Structures are given as structure tokens and as C-alpha cells.
């Protein structure tokens, strides 16, 4: 009987391994939540990208002669206490907050996914260690640890990334570990193992594409969490530093004028909710689309 080499076996393994993505192309436009999410997020991203085209004023330039003005044809959403155009700050704020939130997800996603893969696949001591660190981070309330870390590291965008990475990898590790524990007992992994493929190849070529779906879906919800964390840090004065526009510090500075100029705190809040809704709908739609049939 002729023996089969690992390379000859691989195409068969891959054929059995592709479970999720079938039909995605034909179904995405029939999934209302996905379409709604794409549209909402598309509007926010487009506005952020086209910020110089859709705003007339520099978001940081002050005009102390026209402070705290109501909405008008010149200033669509009025001006703040330093005479800065609120519409410009809102749109440029989208640039800041979206960029930071999207980038903040990258490192936790990679670190958490790799650790989850290793913990789930190897089990034993690797799993014990990973679970130990997960349990430690989970013991801290999300905001308490983020705020404490940003305080220790100092405010600013770079330290927000570090703090979110220290806290954020945990969820990805938990999700991927759980998925791998189930997937590693399936035929295609057993076939790959008996075919003599290396652990590295099994982990990253065969297991990863099949378990990554849940992590991708979670990443969309995670961006919502991150936007909320960034805005909260901004509100507390620990996030993106002034004069860079950020929805959190816009809400905080508007709170002083709540009785007379409610719009200063309200519009940035609505912008956060609108963006978060888009991302949540996208996550919901993705979960529907990527669920194995």
C-alpha cells in the first residue's frame, strides 16, 4: 500500500475544514442587521475621512468673540466655550476616536488569539498558565483596570493602546480556547495529526481559519467597548489630550453649560451611540452570516 505524504493529504483536510464562509457573498445583502451596520458605519467613516471637505472650520482654532453660540447657518451645531465650531470638532472627533478604537483592537486580537490557540490545543500546563492570567485580569473591573493603568502610564493615545491591550486580550483567549477545545477533536484535525503535519501548520493553517470567526465577530463588539472606554477616559480627562477633538472631552466640557447649552454634551453623545449602534449591528449581522449552516 502506498503511503500518503502530509502535503498530499492537505487539500483533503482543507476541503473538510471550510465550514463557515460558504454563501456569505450571496447572503450578506439579505441580512438586514449587517446592511444597516455597514450603512451606519459607512456614514461615520466617510464623514471622518472627508472631514476637511464637510467642515468649514479648523476644529482647534478658537474664536473668543463668538463663544457659546447656538446652531446657525455659519456654525451648524453652534460653538463651544472657546468659540470652536462644534460640527468640526464632532467630525474630527470621529477621526480620532475611530482610529484609536480600531487600532486598539489589533494587538489584543492577535495576542489573545495566539494564546487561545496554544492553550486550547496543547492543554496541560500551557492552558493552566493562560487560564491563570485570564482569571487575574478578569478579577479587575474593566474600567477600574483601564483607568488605573492609564494613570500609571500617563494619559495619551499610546498608553491607551497599552492599557487596552493588557486588559483586552483576555476575551479573545477565552473565545478561541473554547473553540479550539471543540475543533481539535474533529476529523480534519485528527486527519492532519495522523498525516504527520507539524503542530504549527495544524494550528495556523487548519485550526485558525475555523476558529477565528467568533473572534472576528467579537472584535466588532470589542471596538464598541473600546470606543466607550476611549470616550470615558476622555470624559475623565485621561484620554486623548486637548486640543485634539475627542467626543469624551467634548461631553465633559459641555457638561458645565448643561442648563444653557445642552447641545454641547448631547451631540457628541449621540455620535457615540450612532457609531456604536452601527458596529453592534455589524457584529450581529456577521454572527448571522458566519454561523455554520
Amino acid at each position, binding site marked *: 500500500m502506498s503511503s500518503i505524504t502530509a502535503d498530499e493529504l492537505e487539500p483533503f483536510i482543507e476541503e473538510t475544514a471550510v465550514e463557515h464562509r460558504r454563501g456569505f457573498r450571496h447572503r450578506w445583502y439579505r441580512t438586514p442587521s449587517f446592511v444597516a451596520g455597514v450603512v451606519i458605519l459607512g456614514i461615520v467613516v466617510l464623514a471622518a475621512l472627508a472631514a476637511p471637505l464637510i467642515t468649514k472650520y479648523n476644529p482647534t482654532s478658537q474664536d473668543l468673540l463668538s463663544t457659546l453660540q447656538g446652531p446657525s447657518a455659519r456654525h451648524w451645531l453652534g460653538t463651544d466655550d472657546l468659540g470652536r465650531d462644534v460640527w468640526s470638532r464632532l467630525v474630527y472627533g470621529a477621526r480620532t476616536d475611530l482610529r484609536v478604537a480600531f487600532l486598539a483592537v489589533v494587538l489584543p486580537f492577535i495576542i489573545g488569539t495566539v494564546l487561545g490557540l496554544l492553550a486550547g490545543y496543547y492543554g496541560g500546563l500551557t492552558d493552566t498558565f493562560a487560564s491563570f492570567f485570564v*482569571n*487575574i485580569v478578569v478579577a479587575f473591573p474593566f474600567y*477600574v483596570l483601564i483607568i488605573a493603568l492609564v494613570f500609571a502610564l*500617563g494619559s495619551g493615545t499610546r498608553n491607551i493602546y497599552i492599557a487596552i491591550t493588557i486588559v483586552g486580550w483576555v476575551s479573545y483567549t477565552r473565545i478561541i480556547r473554547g473553540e479550539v477545545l471543540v475543533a481539535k477533536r474533529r476529523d480534519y484535525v485528527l486527519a492532519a495529526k495522523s498525516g504527520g503535519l507539524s503542530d504549527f501548520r495544524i494550528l495556523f493553517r487548519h485550526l485558525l481559519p475555523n476558529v477565528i470567526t467568533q473572534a472576528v465577530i467579537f472584535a466588532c463588539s470589542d471596538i464598541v467597548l473600546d470606543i466607550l472606554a476611549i470616550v470615558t477616559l476622555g470624559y475623565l480627562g485621561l484620554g486623548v489630550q486637548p486640543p485634539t477633538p475627542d467626543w469624551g472631552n467634548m461631553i465633559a466640557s459641555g457638561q458645565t453649560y448643561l*442648563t444653557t447649552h445642552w447641545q454641547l454634551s*448631547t451631540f457628541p453623545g449621540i455620535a457615540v451611540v450612532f457609531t*456604536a*449602534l452601527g458596529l*453592534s449591528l455589524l457584529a450581529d449581522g456577521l454572527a448571522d452570516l458566519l454561523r455554520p449552516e
Partner: protein
Amino acid sequence: MTLGEYVGRRLLQMIPVILGVTVLVFFMIHLVPGDPARTILGNQATPARVALVRHAWGLDRPLYVQYWKFMGRVAHGNLGDSLFYGVSAGHLVLQRLPVTLWLIILSAIFAVCIAVPLAAVAATKADRAPDHVVRAVPLVGLGFPAFWVGIVLLLIFGLHAGRLFPVGGYGSGFFGHLHSMILPALTVALGLAPILIRSLRASLLEVLESEYVTTARSKGISEKRVMRKHALRNAIISTVSVLGVNIGYLVGGTLVIEQVFALPGIGQLMINSIFQRDFPVVQAVTLVFAVMVVLVYLLTDVAHALLDPRVRFE
């Protein structure tokens, strides 16, 4: 496994986690860029004062000695002294802890009061209009920044709508405290309710499809009674678990909300201490919050084991 054995095992599992938590809290000071004592005290501090603080915190000793001393202090309930108030950080935390605990309890009660009826309506009318509406709540609700919801509630109920509630502070006397806690607790609850609704709806659906509910229905028991006597009772088990799992979210929520409503709890103490660069107090509050969460996880597991004996044999 008896309940005692189960609790004992969970307590043993808690020890390494608590130790890990102390290590992370201890290392926070070493995340401070440059010389922590100099950074925390600021540029105005004299070299003598910097040296004094460095020595008092043991920063001039090897790391393991520093950790050992830190653990020695923590074991004796000494969480360090506040740089701003000049009293023990533990004392400051204890003084403000009741406010935070009341806020957590009241928020949890409000969240359950909002989530249970909505989840029950959604589960009994699965895949019909009321269910679709309720299912949209988590989708929309989870995107609201809690502090912004607090500001909007302040605007509506504190500044307009007959000024029903105070705009901040803790009030005086039991009813004063309660009155001033309603808006903050409602704010935290509105953030937590969407998570509860999602889990509770799922577990209610599972219970409603179980055999004992079918049996109850086949005996001719009314749908209302089935819901009240059978489904909800069982779904409470998962509500307890979901509340326990989300204690971190609940506690984290109070941290920011206390700041919005000027409630003198440990969340506000932490934020104020951050601006006063009072490192020992920030460290103490972080540690207390984490230990509180670990204890609630334990209590949740025990409550779960009491309500559902199958848990002990898993």
C-alpha cells in the same frame, strides 16, 4: 461533593488569583515612567521629599523585597498612606465603601426590575413583535456611554421635569441618601439591563421548551402560572449567575457614575486621587475593587450551587 467541599475547593482556587491580583497592583507603580517617586510627587517636590517617599515605598530595594514588604503591609490591612490627605488609604476606602456598596445593590435591583419583565415578555412572545423590540434593546443599549446617559438623566430629571431628583451629592439621612441614589443607580442599571435581558431571554426560552413545562401545560395550568411558578423560578438561577459574571461591569460602571453625580464613594475617591496623583489611594482602591469582584464571583458560585445542586457534581 458536599456544599462544604465545593466551597472549600473554590476558596483554594481563589488564593492564586488573589495573589496574582496583588502582583499586578504592586507592579502598577513600576509602570510609571521614569522615577515613580519623582513623577508622582511632581517637579516641585524637593529631592529630600522624593528620597523620603522612595525609601518609604521601598523603591530603593530589590523588586522581590518590595513585593514582600507590600504583601506584609496588605496582610495587616495596611494599604499605605494617602499623599494628599495624610491618613491611611484603607481608612479612606472604608469611609467611602458604604456609598459604593449601596449604589451597586440599588443598581442591581433596578437592573433586575427592568430586565425580568422585558425578558419574560420577549420569551413568551418569541419571534413576534414584542420579542423583536426587546431583542433590539441590547443592540442599541450597549452602545450608550454610561456617563452620558447619566448626564441626559440629570438634564431631564434633575434640571427639568419638576427637578424630581438632586443633581448630585449624597443627601442626608436614609431617605436623603436613597433619593440622591435613584438617578445614579438607574443610570448604572440601564447599562447592565441589556446584558441581563439577553441572557435571561435565552434561559427563559430554554426553560419554556423543557419537558417539565410541557407537563405543567398539559395538566391545564395557565400560561401565567407556568411562567411565574416554573419558568421564572428556574430562570432566577441564571439571573444570579449573569449578575455575578457582570459584577465587574457593574462595579466599573459605578466608578464613572459616582463622578457624574458627585457621589462620595470609592469610585469618586479613585478619580479624585488620580488628579491629586495620590498613588497609594489609587492602588488601594484598585485592590479593593478586584478583591470585591473575586469575592462576588465566589458568592455567585456558592449561590448557584445552593440553587442548583447539579453544579457541585460537574
